């Protein structure tokens, strides 16, 4: 199950962060997202050490914690997408697919002429679309 997704701008400013848990652990999840930004920086600045040769947008598993797995994605425009999940066996293809759809939703949201670049995404349509993508992620990995 995906517990948290986040969009982080090119100056490491949060653009959108949403947790999907019943419990009151949003702060803890935000902390995990915050920590993962350092890992993203490290991956991008030392591509050889981390085996990232093709400059792919998908950064793979950033780091596992006790209960969570954190995945990252970095676009050409230096916007980072972070995914925190509790699933133990996640297929890479599923995560890639998730990020591709998430990116498409993000592009549609920022193409809104009323969206101010670099500011938080407040669109309800975007939030709805993201929660749909998150829900369908659970389904595809179960099946």
């Amino acid at each position, binding site marked *: 199950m995906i517990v948290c997704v986040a969009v982080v701008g*090119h100056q490491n400013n949060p653009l959108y962060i949403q947790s999907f848990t019943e419990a009151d652990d949003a702060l803890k999840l935000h902390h995990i997202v915050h920590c993962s930004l350092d890992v993203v920086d490290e991956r991008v600045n030392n591509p050889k050490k981390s085996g990232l040769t*093709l*400059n*792919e*947008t998908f950064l793979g598993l950033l780091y596992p914690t006790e209960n969570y797995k954190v995945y990252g994605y*970095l*676009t*050409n*425009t*230096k916007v980072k997408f972070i995914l925190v999940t509790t699933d133990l066996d996640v297929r890479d293809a599923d995560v890639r697919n998730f990020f591709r759809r998430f*990116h*498409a939703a993000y*592009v549609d949201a*920022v*193409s809104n*002429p009323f969206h101010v*670049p670099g500011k938080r995404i407040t669109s309800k349509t975007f939030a709805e679309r993201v929660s749909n993508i998150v829900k369908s992620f659970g389904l595809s990995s179960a099946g």
Partner: protein
Amino acid sequence: MGREVSESCIDSLLTEMVASYCNQFYSNTPELAARRIEAIGYQVGHQLSERYTMDRPRFTDHLEAIKFICKDFWSELFKKQIDNLKTNHRGTFVLQDNKFRWLSRISGDPSVDNGTQDPESKAAQAMSMYLYFPCGIIRGALSNLGIPCAVSADISSLPACEYNWILRPCCFSIKYAF
């Protein structure tokens, strides 16, 4: 899923935008009108670059990003690539389009004849206003890709033999500091 836009609508929109900014909102201050039109282009370029770089690996250096502008970005906008790319390797790039689509339907007004200027220079003067929008698009796209720069357009700097009024060539120079 690609969406298509009517070419004539874009042409009319650009013409109308330039006309309203130059003749209505900022009729006394053309440099302010130019800045506003450039700012609109900037936002458009910013958003388009987000969309068109979606399925691509990340660019490793500036040249790769400029090449993307010349090839894929230009193809998406104008269905053709930039014809010539020159650089001095010190932060200046010159993009030359030998048949710039947005200028191909512009002509000077023959009814306004003050006798002092030849029609060609008059047309060039009128055209320069229409080039701020594409300049803004290029600047917006590049700054979104992490290259802050200044972009200017020129229709008269080409050598006379290359210059052709029917084809409407256009040069965009991009300058950025390392």
